[in-house]
C-alpha cells in the first residue's frame, strides 16, 4: 500500500494588486517555505495604481516602473501566479479555492486582497462604451490615454482625488476639462473646506472648469461624444466622460463565504477576518484604527502595502498590529499634496507657511482642540515630523505651529488625546 503524499502547506492569495503582491512577497521574506499561490483576475502582473491617473496616463510612465511582482521575482520567490483567473468560490469547510475555469487549490491559510471596483452610473450601459471611462486598472488607464490623445474636451463626474488627478493630467495633455461634483465642494468626504477651496482655485488656475453643488439629471450619447444635463438645466458636452465617483469594495466572494462584512471585509488589527484561517488587506478590508478611534476602510497606497505586510506576518505567527495613522498623497500640476490622519474631521485650520500659495501645511483641529490631521502642500518633511508626534500621542501647540522661524521638530507640543 502506498501512503498518500502529504500535501505541502499552502497559502493562497486571492487578488492581483498591490496588497496581494505585498502579502506574497512578505510571506517569502519572512520565511514561509510552503506552496504559495497568487490568483489575480487581471492579466497584468501585480502593479501599483497611483501612476494610472498621473504619469502613466500622461504617457511618461511605464508598466515596468509600477510592476511590484515581476515574472523573475515570482520565479525566484516561488510564487505561483495564476493571472487572468477569477475565483468563483471558496469552500471554507474543505478549504478549497475554485476558479472560473475550474482550477482548484487547497489552502491552509487564505488571503483576500480583492480590492474594489469603480462605481458605475445608473444607465451607463446605454452610453457608447468607447466614450465612457472609469479608472481603476492598467487597461483602463491605457484606454483613457488613447482616448485623451484624440480629444478636445473631457468631462469628469466626481470631484474626488481620481477625478482631479485625471483633470490635471488632461490639462497637461492640452485637453479641456470640466469637473462636476454633486457635493458643495471638492473632496468633501475627506477634506476640510480650506483644502477644497484651495483645490478649486488650483484647478481653475489651470483652466479647469469646476462645477460643484449640482447633480446630474441625465446623460446622453451624441454621435461624437456624450452630453450631460445638470440638475440646474445646463447641458455639458464632451468627447469623453470619466466617472470618478468612487469604488465599491469587492466583497462578493467574502459574502458568499459568510465572512463578517461592513462596507468591506471586517478584519482585526492583524488583518484576520471572522474566519481565523482567512485574512484580508487593502482597499477591501475594514480595520480598527486606533488614531481614529473607530474602524476604517482606507483606499490608499500606504494602507494596501502596510496592512498587507502586517497580515502576512500575522499569518506566520507575528505579533505586530496594523496601527498606522491614515496617510495618502496626490500629485496634481507638479504639486505634491500629502494628507495625514483625518483632516476632514477638523473644524479649525492653522497654516504653517502658505500652503495655498504652494508651500506649507494646514494643521486641522476639532472643536475641542484635538489635532485630527493635516494637509501638506509641497511640505512632506513637516508632515513627517508631525506624524512622528501624533504617533507618540502628542501634537504641536497650534500657535507654535504657525511659527516658521522654529524648525518643526523643535516646536513645543502637548498630549493629543486619541479621538473619540
Amino acid at each position, binding site marked *: 500500500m502506498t501512503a498518500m503524499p502529504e500535501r505541502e502547506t499552502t497559502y493562497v492569495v486571492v487578488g492581483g494588486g498591490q496588497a496581494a503582491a*505585498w502579502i506574497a512577497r*512578505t510571506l517569502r521574506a519572512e520565511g514561509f517555505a510552503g506552496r504559495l499561490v497568487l490568483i489575480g483576475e487581471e492579466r497584468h502582473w501585480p502593479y501599483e495604481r497611483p501612476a494610472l491617473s498621473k504619469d502613466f496616463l500622461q504617457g511618461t510612465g511605464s508598466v515596468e516602473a509600477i510592476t*511590484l511582482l515581476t515574472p523573475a521575482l515570482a520565479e525566484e520567490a516561488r510564487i505561483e501566479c495564476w493571472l487572468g483567473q477569477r475565483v468563483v468560490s471558496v469552500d471554507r469547510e474543505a478549504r478549497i479555492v475554485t476558479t472560473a475555469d475550474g482550477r482548484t487549490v487547497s489552502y491552509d491559510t487564505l488571503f483576500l486582497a480583492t480590492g474594489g471596483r469603480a462605481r458605475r452610473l445608473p444607465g451607463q450601459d446605454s452610453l457608447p462604451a468607447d466614450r465612457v471611462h472609469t479608472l481603476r486598472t492598467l487597461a483602463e488607464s491605457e484606454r483613457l490615454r488613447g482616448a485623451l490623445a484624440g480629444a478636445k474636451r473631457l468631462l469628469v463626474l466626481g470631484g474626488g482625488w481620481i477625478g482631479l488627478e485625471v483633470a490635471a493630467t488632461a490639462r497637461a495633455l492640452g485637453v479641456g476639462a470640466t469637473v462636476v461634483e454633486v457635493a458643495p465642494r471638492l473632496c468633501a468626504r475627506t477634506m476640510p473646506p480650506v483644502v477644497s477651496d484651495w483645490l478649486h482655485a488650483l484647478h481653475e488656475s489651470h483652466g479647469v472648469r469646476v462645477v460643484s453643488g449640482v447633480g446630474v439629471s441625465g446623460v446622453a450619447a451624441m454621435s461624437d461624444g456624450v452630453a450631460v444635463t445638470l440638475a440646474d438645466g445646463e447641458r455639458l458636452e464632451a468627447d469623453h466622460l470619466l466617472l470618478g465617483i468612487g469604488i465599491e469594495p469587492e466583497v462578493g466572494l467574502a459574502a458568499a463565504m459568510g465572512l463578517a462584512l461592513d462596507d468591506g471585509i471586517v478584519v482585526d488589527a492583524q488583518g484576520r477576518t471572522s474566519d481565523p484561517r482567512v485574512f484580508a488587506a487593502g482597499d477591501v478590508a475594514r480595520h480598527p484604527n486606533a488614531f481614529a478611534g473607530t474602524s476604517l476602510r482606507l483606499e490608499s497606497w*500606504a494602507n494596501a502595502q*502596510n496592512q498587507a505586510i502586517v497580515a502576512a506576518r500575522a499569518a506566520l505567527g507575528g505579533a505586530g498590529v496594523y496601527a498606522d495613522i491614515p*496617510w495618502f498623497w496626490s500629485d496634481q500640476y507638479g504639486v505634491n499634496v500629502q494628507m495625514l490622519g483625518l483632516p476632514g474631521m477638523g473644524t479649525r485650520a492653522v497654516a504653517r507657511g502658505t500652503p495655498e500659495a504652494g508651500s506649507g501645511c494646514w494643521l486641522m483641529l476639532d472643536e475641542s482642540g484635538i489635532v485630527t490631521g493635516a494637509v501638506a502642500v509641497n511640505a*512632506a*518633511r513637516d508632515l*513627517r*515630523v508631525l506624524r512622528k508626534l501624533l504617533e507618540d500621542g502628542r501634537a504641536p501647540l497650534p500657535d507654535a505651529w504657525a511659527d516658521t522661524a522654529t524648525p518643526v521638530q523643535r516646536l513645543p507640543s502637548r498630549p493629543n488625546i486619541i479621538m473619540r
Partner: protein
Amino acid sequence: MTEWPMTEWHDAAATDALDDDEVMALNIAGVPVALFRQEGGFFALHDLCSHGAARLSDGFVENGCVECPLHQGLIDIRSGAPCSAPITEPVRSYPVRVVGDRVEISLDR
C-alpha cells in the same frame, strides 16, 4: 608602474553646517547629493530615492535611517541599503572625508 586613478574630492560643506541627524541637499558637479551627519560622522547618498525618485534630503532622519518623503521607505544612511518596503534597490553612497573644518565628497565610486 601602475598608475592608480586619483580620487577627486569635492568641497561640500563646513563641518559645523550640520548637527547630528540633520541632512543637507547639495549639488556637486551636477549630481544631487544628500549629506547626512550621524554621531559626528558624515555620510553622503545620491539624493534620489531608488523607488519613487523623491529627494532623500527632504526625508525624515531617525535611528540611522532616512525615510523617503514620498513613500515612507527607509534607507540606511551609512550604506544606502534598503531597510523597509517599498524600497528594494540600494541608493548609491559616496565616499566622504573631513579635511580641517571642511567636508569633502568624492563622486568616483
